[in-house]
């Protein structure tokens, strides 16, 4: 069998998780529609896009990392962990700085504030980096146990 990006087991897992992600996306779009209809605009368009994309994306990436179906056939490369960690630290620094200066607000004029963007990025990249690290550690332990 030729070496492909994902093997058949990984593909079946990814397809299942992708389907669940699609359902979550539908639900989020529905909720967004209802909130806009009965309450009004809950965020500016770009932020709305970010939220609607990031939450399902985080679901997909976290679950596929947990099931060993992420980042090709190799065990997770260290570079991705480092890059994600760096993104988490940088966005975390921005959020922390805003909080310390008393400038961080979640809701502004009845809508989600634009500062949520950095917070979401921090959660996404930090969560992914942690999930990758945990998976890497578990894989190593499994290998040692087998040997």
């Amino acid at each position, binding site marked *: *069998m*030729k*070496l*492909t990006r994902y093997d*058949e*087991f990984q593909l*079946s897992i990814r397809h299942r998780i992708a389907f669940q992600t699609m359902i979550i996306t539908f639900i989020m779009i529905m909720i967004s529609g209802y909130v806009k209809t009965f309450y009004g605009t809950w965020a500016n368009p770009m932020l709305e896009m970010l939220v609607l994309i990031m939450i399902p994306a985080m679901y997909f990436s976290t679950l596929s990392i947990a099931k060993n179906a992420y980042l090709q056939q190799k065990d997770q490369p260290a570079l991705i962990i480092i890059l994600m960690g760096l993104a988490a630290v940088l966005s975390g620094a921005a959020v922390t700085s805003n909080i310390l200066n008393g400038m961080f607000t979640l809701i502004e004029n009845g809508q989600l504030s634009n500062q949520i963007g950095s917070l979401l990025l921090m959660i996404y990249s930090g969560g992914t980096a942690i999930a990758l690290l945990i998976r890497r550690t578990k*894989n190593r332990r499994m290998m040692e146990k087998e040997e």
Partner: protein
Amino acid sequence: MAKNLRLKAARATKDLSQAKLAEAVGVTRQTMNAIENGDYNPSLQLCIAICKALDLTLNDLFWGND
């Protein structure tokens, strides 16, 4: 699904680790682990590849009575 102990035994006879066998057939070690533990039912193509790598038949590894 039941564990595939025949596969594990055949791999041990050839002195192959899960990682080495997985590499030989073009899957990840985790997939090979899932097959041995009965957590995943491999496709016929993958079954044939595993048999070729272990120099055994489908009957020896996947079919027939336990």
